[in-house]
């Protein structure tokens, strides 16, 4: 049964989600800044062609748009997207010694956020019957590809979080 808009989501859950989004955005910005300063990879637009060949999947938040907000679908897409980014960040392992700590924190924060949404869906009885399984992930075969992949994944993550933040803010408005 789809949920009514904000009514059923606890305020503390929404406030925690907003806090987590801000943290992940900060982690992501830190990763992007380090990729730029350390490896001179500063613009995702320069890596579009490479991105196509690597086949980096896209996460959709279509059920979260303000016009057609469908809460259960939105929560599931939010979780699905975060779960996808967990896999992508994992695939970037070995990116470079300087970036590894930043990538680890980013991955932990994304995983925490995904878990919180899953647990909330379970509490509301709208969680999918089965935990999602990770689809095929791009294989990064060189240090350069992991760094270029890092730029592309971080930039997609920021766009995803921007959308998520907007819908969570809307849901949290009293």
């Amino acid at each position, binding site marked *: 049964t789809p949920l009514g808009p904000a009514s059923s989501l606890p305020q503390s859950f929404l406030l*925690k989600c907003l*806090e987590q989004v801000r943290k992940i955005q900060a982690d992501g910005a830190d990763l992007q800044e380090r990729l730029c300063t350390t490896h001179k990879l500063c613009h995702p637009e320069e890596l579009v062609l490479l991105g196509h060949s690597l086949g980096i999947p896209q996460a959709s938040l279509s059920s979260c748009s303000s016009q057609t907000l469908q809460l259960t679908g939105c929560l599931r897409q939010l979780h699905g997207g975060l779960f996808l980014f967990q896999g992508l960040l994992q695939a970037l392992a070995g990116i470079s010694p300087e970036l590894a700590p930043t990538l680890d924190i980013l991955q932990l924060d994304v995983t925490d956020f995904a878990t919180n949404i899953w647990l909330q869906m379970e509490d509301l009885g709208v969680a999918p019957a089965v935990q999602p399984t990770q689809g095929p992930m791009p294989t990064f075969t060189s240090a350069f590809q992991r760094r270029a992949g890092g730029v592309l994944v971080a930039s997609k993550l920021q766009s995803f979080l921007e959308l998520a933040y907007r819908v969570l803010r809307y849901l949290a408005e009293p």
Partner: protein
Amino acid sequence: QCGHISLSAPIVRLGDPITASCIISQNCSHLDSESHIVWKLEAELQPGERQQYLPNGTLQSTITLPHLNRSRALLSCCLHWGNSLQILDQAELQAGYPPATPHNLSCLMNLTTNSLTCQWEPGPNNHLSTNFTLKSFRSRGNCQSQEDSIPDCVPEDGQSHCSIPRKHLQLYQNMGIWVQAKNALGTSVSPKLCLVPMDVVKLEPPTLWALGPSPELAPPQPGCLRLRWETWKPSLHIDQKCELRHQPRLGEASWDLVGALPSRTLQYELCRLRPSTAYALQMRCTRWRLPGHWSNWSPSLELTTTQR
């Protein structure tokens, strides 16, 4: 082996009795009917041993020390030989108490080290080597049920604090945490804490800056001060509310408080102060509307109000 001591127990409670027996084998080759085993506790001879020859010709002596009142003592099994007393074996006796219950367990989430640091009071010295372990598990509800366990956190020797690294934490989920103390005489566990790491974040104070005169701004009113502040950088993602307190630097006036301020402002004007007076200002913040601890008060920012 020439002589061998065996103990009723290697470690006993302080003041309890302890029984030791010493067997001296034939290959000590100096045994004869007059041979007599002598016991020494540290340097003092101990009376009251019972000695007997065993069928296989070995000599056995047994002694019971009624009250072992020292946490460490050396027990020696000796034999008169010529005019000397020969030490044939030694055993270290240990006595103490089972560990007291660790108490005052408290934890703080450290945003710079990204770890949850817990500390406790170990209780009185029990004279024995005691291992403390910080145990924890993740839980959905209020820590009644255990979801999945977290690896034990073993503090450095003699330390009464331990830090659980970020990779074992779920910052927004409940965790059950307690301390276990274990030594040779027993085990004790502290009362259990149930907390969410992000709800016990240790916030550092915000930073206050004076706002210098600037072309876009009219000069401040007499009896007013202009300042701005920003919360501690690692907590920028956390919504907070802050409090400002101020008092004239000289004289005995107590602090005045301005509450419920936003966690960041580019420009704030504090008025209804005495003109041309030097003031000390301090600020602290707390995570808000979500639970959290107040930070300490910031160092003082000293500003002087303009003349009338």
